[in-house]
């Protein structure tokens, strides 16, 4: 694949104020402001912004974008692209490959004159019953996230975290366990994990969680008996599991619940002080992002001599891969955050 005249991806992938721009293809990947042509990795609000003229993404990502922002704002032209199918945009060969982050999440692979770059978007390597698993693609530059790029972040198996939750429900059968989980991805994953662990009772949802759960079901991810928490009796909620946005679990909304045990499903819960400062009684370390080991293993697996880090703790990841001879570059893309980090929010804020 390598020729001596193969261009370095730096020559054709540029960081512009609107985001990462593929010059010979004339498109942006996950631009932060409305553009003419956008390829979208996944539907989280910091990656999928409204108002682009032409949007290319997986069918699931486009479906979720339409639910979140409305049909019109999800792109004037919406082009669904199946995983693995190669398409030529301008002079660039482009395809999508599963990223394992949330339903529909994709890596964007781009090839120009024998030089290949892969933009991972957000990703994880742990199995997730609600989405297709990450598939590594060998490349010259791997563009990675670094949300949890510190060696203190090692996510335990999610099944063990769900077992902790169920053990607590058994110990406090008269209390409501309210689980804070981001509305897109985390919420459905927690539900699916609960179902796999044998929890077949109704799961109650905050209003903000309902539309995306319905959309997941429509897209073929069964979630079982889901009911609105808002209209349920306090008595029905004793011993029940309720899922709500992280911003609502320790605030006024939760007062309707029966002596709630406040739980939060997030990779940040690995750090006790984080749990304590947010008033979380039962932290559940369940994350949709790669942890320290997964980030490093993925860099090795794709075999790229160079990584570009979009956002997160880039300094630690770059420091670590340098020890193995991999060059690292911090893109410092502004506007990407972390949906797991969301602060007290009304409804479904990012």
């Amino acid at each position: 694949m390598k020729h001596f005249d193969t261009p370095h991806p730096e020559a054709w992938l540029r960081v512009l104020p609107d985001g990462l721009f593929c010059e010979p293809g004339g498109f942006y990947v996950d631009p932060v402001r409305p553009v003419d042509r956008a390829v979208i990795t996944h539907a989280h609000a910091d990656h999928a912004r409204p108002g682009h003229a032409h949007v290319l993404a997986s069918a699931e990502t486009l479906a979720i974008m339409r639910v979140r922002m409305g049909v019109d704002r999800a792109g004037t032209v919406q082009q669904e692209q199946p995983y693995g199918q190669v398409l030529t945009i301008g002079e660039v060969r482009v395809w999508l490959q599963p990223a394992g982050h949330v339903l529909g999440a994709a890596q964007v692979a781009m090839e120009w004159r024998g030089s290949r770059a892969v933009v991972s978007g957000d990703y994880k390597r742990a199995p997730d019953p609600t989405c297709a698993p990450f598939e590594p693609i060998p490349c010259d530059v791997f563009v990675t996230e670094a949300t949890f790029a510190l060696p203190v972040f090692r996510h335990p198996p999610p099944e063990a975290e769900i077992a902790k939750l169920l053990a607590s429900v058994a110990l406090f059968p008269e209390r409501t366990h309210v689980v804070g989980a981001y509305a897109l991805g985390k919420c459905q994953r927690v539900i699916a994990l609960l179902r796999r662990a044998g929890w077949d009772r109704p799961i109650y949802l905050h209003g903000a969680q309902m539309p995306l759960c319905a959309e997941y079901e429509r897209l073929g991810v069964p979630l079982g008996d889901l009911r609105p928490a808002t209209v349920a009796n306090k008595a029905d909620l004793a011993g029940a599991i309720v899922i709500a946005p992280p911003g609502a679990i320790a605030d006024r909304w939760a007062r309707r619940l029966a002596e709630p045990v406040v739980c939060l499903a997030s990779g940040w819960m690995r750090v006790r002080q984080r749990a304590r400062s947010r008033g979380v009684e039962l932290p559940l370390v369940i994350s949709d992002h790669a942890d320290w080991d997964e980030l490093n293993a993925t860099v090795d697996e794709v075999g790229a001599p160079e990584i570009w880090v979009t956002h997160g703790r880039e300094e630690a990841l770059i420091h670590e891969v340098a020890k193995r001879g991999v060059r690292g570059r911090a893109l410092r893309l502004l506007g990407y955050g972390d949906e797991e980090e969301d602060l007290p929010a009304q409804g479904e804020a990012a």
Partner: protein
Amino acid sequence: MIAFAELLERLVLTPGRLAKIALLRRYFATEPDPDRGFALAALTGELAFQAAKPMLIRGLAEARTDPTLFAWSYDYVGDLADTVALMWPAKPTNQPAPGMTEVIQTLIATPKTDLPDIVAGWLDASDASGRYALLKLITGSLRVGASARLAKVALAELAGGRIAPDEIEEIWHGLTPPYLPLFEWLEGTAERPDPAGAPVFRPLMLAQPLEPPDFAALDPAAFRAEWKWDGIRAQLVAMPGGRRVYSRGAEDISNSFPELIEAMDFHAVLDGEILVLRDGVVAPFADLQQRLGRKVVGGKMLRDYPVHVRLYDMLFDGAEDLRALTFDERRVRLEAWFARTQPARMDLSAMIPFQTIAELSEIRDGTRAASIEGLMLKRANSPYVPGRPKGQWWKWKRDPLSIDAVMMYAQRGHGKRSSFYSDYTFGLWREDGELVPVGKAYSGFTDAELVQLDRWVRNHTTNRYGPVREVERGMVMEIAFDAAQRSNRHKSGVALRFPRVARLRWDKPAAEADKLETLMNTIENLSH
């Protein structure tokens, strides 16, 4: 260690008392001996190995981790043990996670120099929460918000209601880890362990607050009156098996008061109030605070804050249990014992003569010494009964003082109140027009008022600092307190005793709240 680590993790984050008891009970009910006994010792601070220094943990981390990554991680996490527990790069091992008993026994028996290698092996075999529990255990910093009392309540539940927490309390300090006879007794397979001559704690008899409706029922002839001193309640226990000073919560505070231990050259169990006394005058509570919570008390402390015990009851005279006697009978025994023994650093609480309740009420109103909180009324024929038996002992506090203060900051509460801003820092106006904080109150309002206050805080926030909100200067609260004392710990120079919200002054503009000077004048009046 796995079950203990899980217990710790939950206890650290659980605010509710009942939930903590449930977690402890489950642990004691499901874990085997002697693991559960060592865990109990760890939670109640009764383990007898010398704690390792944090340097040990740092050394382990340096040997195993990249220094740059360690520095960034420590900076992020903020706690040394937590950082190492989370980032520990475990070497593959086929050892199982170490058991509680193995860990404790090894820590007791191993010389410090051998510890790092052993601990590293344990860390390799544990997961992150197991590593955290281990590191906290070996450095002796196991603060999990579960008091020793809570553990005893959970143990009593293990006995299914047959045994009261106070009964456990009475033998507790005569037991040693891993408490096998205690668990046998709780589970009904053995008799109650006999503390023999050990210096055990005896649960205290407490008083109820006297409220106006109770006055009428009081027969002056049936009661005895004493001053209620503003010190700390203590039980002095001197037995053939040793000498101890206990707090009212059964905590062994002997280390804070070596001069008292030295003075206890007798065999008796006494109830009294620890006070700082200079030339016969009781110093403000803030002086006594200097002596609390110290492992070692230096010579300067002993000179500058000399302590003294004002005795008011006697539970044991030698080996003889006096608790079934009446108050009057015990008082006679106490006076006779005192005359005979002449103990250093102690005196008798004076009995206040009175004929009528009205006369007593006048005496109470006339009290202006800061070190006196009011009066104690004790039924003459009351036996010494643990807890707060109804109608036996009354505390009749002086009417509180009050000020109109302005709310400055509000913080979220805990447990049931975690969605409410329920802890309020209030301030008074200084001459230069600056509002300075003088205290914090989190009680005194009704549930309905809490909802109103919470709404007000949310609608008048000017700044946020984590869980704390700074609010507009617009909410005047009447604050009741028992005394104002000088303090150089506070910016205002004054500390309040037992501040609480007496009334919400929705009607009063903030500018008309009290001046700091007004409060300072009450200090002047109150001191000798």
